[in-house]
């Protein structure tokens, strides 16, 4: 089965989603990422969705859940790179991703994680 790779950078984990997300893949990512946070005692997670063209309510909820699970385990999650069309659609759909931190770019997301943890 397909898996989305999780890269480790020191105490941070980096995920870049480059494929069209099917439900099973998102569920697998939730599992893998939560386990990786625990295994590496990660303090931050960066999820890059700049290549993601569609976020529906299921995918949105999974992103929210990933962020909540990380928080419970002591890691901050920052979602970066959301496309404008995706942001407009999400809000119209009624999903504003409460509790999920966002940044426009990977660099800014990383800065935010580093600032918090220094």
């Amino acid at each position, binding site marked *: 089965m397909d898996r989305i790779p999780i890269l480790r950078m020191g105490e941070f984990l980096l995920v870049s989603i480059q494929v069209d997300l*099917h439900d099973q893949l998102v569920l697998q990512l939730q599992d893998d990422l939560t386990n990786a946070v625990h295994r590496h005692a990660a303090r931050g997670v960066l999820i890059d969705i700049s290549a993601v063209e569609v976020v*529906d309510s299921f995918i949105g909820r999974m992103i929210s859940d990933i962020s909540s699970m990380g928080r419970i385990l002591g890691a901050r999650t920052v979602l970066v790179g959301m496309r404008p069309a995706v942001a*407009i*659609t999400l809000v119209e*759909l009624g999903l504003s991703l409460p509790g999920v931190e966002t940044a426009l770019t990977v660099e800014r997301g990383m800065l935010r994680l580093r600032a918090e943890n220094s």
Partner: protein
Amino acid sequence: MDGSQSPLKSPNDIVLARQLVRRAAQQIGLSLVDQTKVVTAASELARNALVHGHGGVMDLEVVENGGRRGLRLTFSDQGPGIPNIDLALTDGWTSGNGLGLGLSGARRLVNEFRIHSQVGRGTQVTVVRWK
């Protein structure tokens, strides 16, 4: 006008449905934001047909009205049907463990929205997004 029908039998069919709708939306010249809206609506409705309707089909048609082009999508299933459609269209109402935004959210992303459901017979949702 040209149309196609595709099955909604597995989670992967949701991805395929999104791709078909994206291509058709590009072909009729929808803006990027409108493409994203109609593809997202299709994703919600395809998932509903799969999860709540135990599978179904999506019909995709390019329609025209006074020189204006649009995309008409129909999602049909033979599932248990929806006993109370008004309730099902309420934000936050859910029969499962979702957020309850599928139907109500999809309706906000399109220009026309029609739903027909019979308990024990199935549900049909038709949406149109005009250029």
